[in-house]
């Protein structure tokens, strides 16, 4: 048995690089960056919350691109990339929502508020969980891959209209309007955020590569099994 688990050299380098970057991101977030005056230690979640949210949107954008390329080229690998990206994107989207909720409780005194960004993220989560449900219902068939690609494209086109409709819906409703005080990050905070986002982006790429590889192997194995059985 090979000790490198059959991974190519660039992927193994990525392993090491990723480990270093995540450690660095943790250091930057917890030790290097100053503690925020008003929110205190709670604000540390910001570095991971924003990075996870960025990854989720990156994942959904990748599904969109991979779906278009798949429909144009009909090469199975793009279908696998889209699916892998969706699994990982939903994971990061879940993390974003949970971390956001944990942060909202001390910061705004509620677990959830129907703010445009929060609600859009929640709707996105549902759209892409739907994508995964569709994938599990259609199996590995070519028809299922096409259906999923279409959903991946329409789902992404839906994002801006969801955002605008939710925003209007909120502004026409009276209630707590929560403005995130985005302006004016302390310099240390900005740098820590950048490191964290870089680490997360690399983690995303890394996971997509690994998941794509494992899914292709599993499909190949299914193919061999089918031919043996016949």
């Amino acid at each position, binding site marked *: 048995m090979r000790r490198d688990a059959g991974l190519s050299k660039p992927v193994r380098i990525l392993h090491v690089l990723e480990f270093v970057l995540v450690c660095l991101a943790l250091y930057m977030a917890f030790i290097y960056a100053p503690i925020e005056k008003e929110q205190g230690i709670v604000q540390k979640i910001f570095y991971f919350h924003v990075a996870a949210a960025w990854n989720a949107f990156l994942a959904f954008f990748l599904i969109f691109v991979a779906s278009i390329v798949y*429909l144009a080229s009909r090469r199975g690998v793009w279908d696998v990339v889209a699916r892998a990206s969706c699994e990982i994107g939903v994971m990061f989207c879940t993390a974003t929502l949970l971390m956001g909720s944990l942060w909202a409780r001390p910061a705004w005194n509620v677990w959830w508020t129907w703010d445009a960004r929060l609600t859009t993220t929640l*709707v996105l989560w*549902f*759209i892409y*969980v*739907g*994508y995964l*449900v*569709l994938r599990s*219902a*259609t199996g590995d068939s070519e*028809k*299922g891959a*096409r*259906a999923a*690609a*279409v*959903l991946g*494209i*329409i*789902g992404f*086109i*839906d994002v801006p*209209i*969801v955002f*605008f*409709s*939710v925003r*209007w*819906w909120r502004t*026409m409703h009276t209630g707590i309007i929560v403005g995130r005080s985005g302006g004016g990050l302390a310099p240390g905070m900005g740098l820590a955020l950048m490191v964290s986002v870089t680490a997360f982006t690399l983690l995303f790429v890394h996971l997509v590569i690994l998941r794509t590889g494992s899914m292709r192997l599993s499909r190949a194995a299914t193919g061999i099994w089918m031919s043996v059985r016949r």
Partner: protein
Amino acid sequence: MPFLKTIYLIIKKDFISEVRTLESVAATVVLALVILVICGFAFGPVFGDLEKVAAGIIWIAIAFSGTLGLSRMFGAERENGCFLGLVMSPANKGAVYLAKVITVLALLLTVEVIVLPAFAVLFDYPVFRSFWPTTLCFLLGSIGFAAVGTMMATVSSGAKRQEMLLSVILFPLMVPVLISAVRSTGQLMAGSSLADVANWVRMLVVCDMIFLVSSFIMYDLVIEE
């Protein structure tokens, strides 16, 4: 075969088979009425501000029963082998899509024609305070529903757990249509004028266009076997 004639023939076929069996319409309408009655129980016999929830109740009834109707319709098509016929025919797939959208729209409008008066009677609420603007908003909302619904019903038809799958993928995509439809019709029922809800009407038109065009382009990808 010219484009419009294809659409006409498919619609005609759907109407004839629907009128003969009432397979989709009957169940859909009954479900919509049941939802109204359940909402009556859920929100109590005496309402404080009915105008806040009226449009919501009506659209919940339309959306849930409409989804059931959709999956019945496409399920029946598949069982009868009609779907295979359409796939194999040389008909333009965009025309097939538009024909199906119109059939689904007709189903939704039938539900609305029955549900709206029923709501007005059961809840003693003037649904059509301004007739034409309200009709316009219901029509635009239904077009949006039919546009995405037809696409997603085709995507999910033939898959395992088809009915559940359709609701799971359809409702999140429908969020912008539902929000705009509920807001616009709700405000019109509460006595606003069309100018007050112009933004929502614009939003509905934009959603309808986006869903119709994107589905029209991609329909042949989901219909082939």
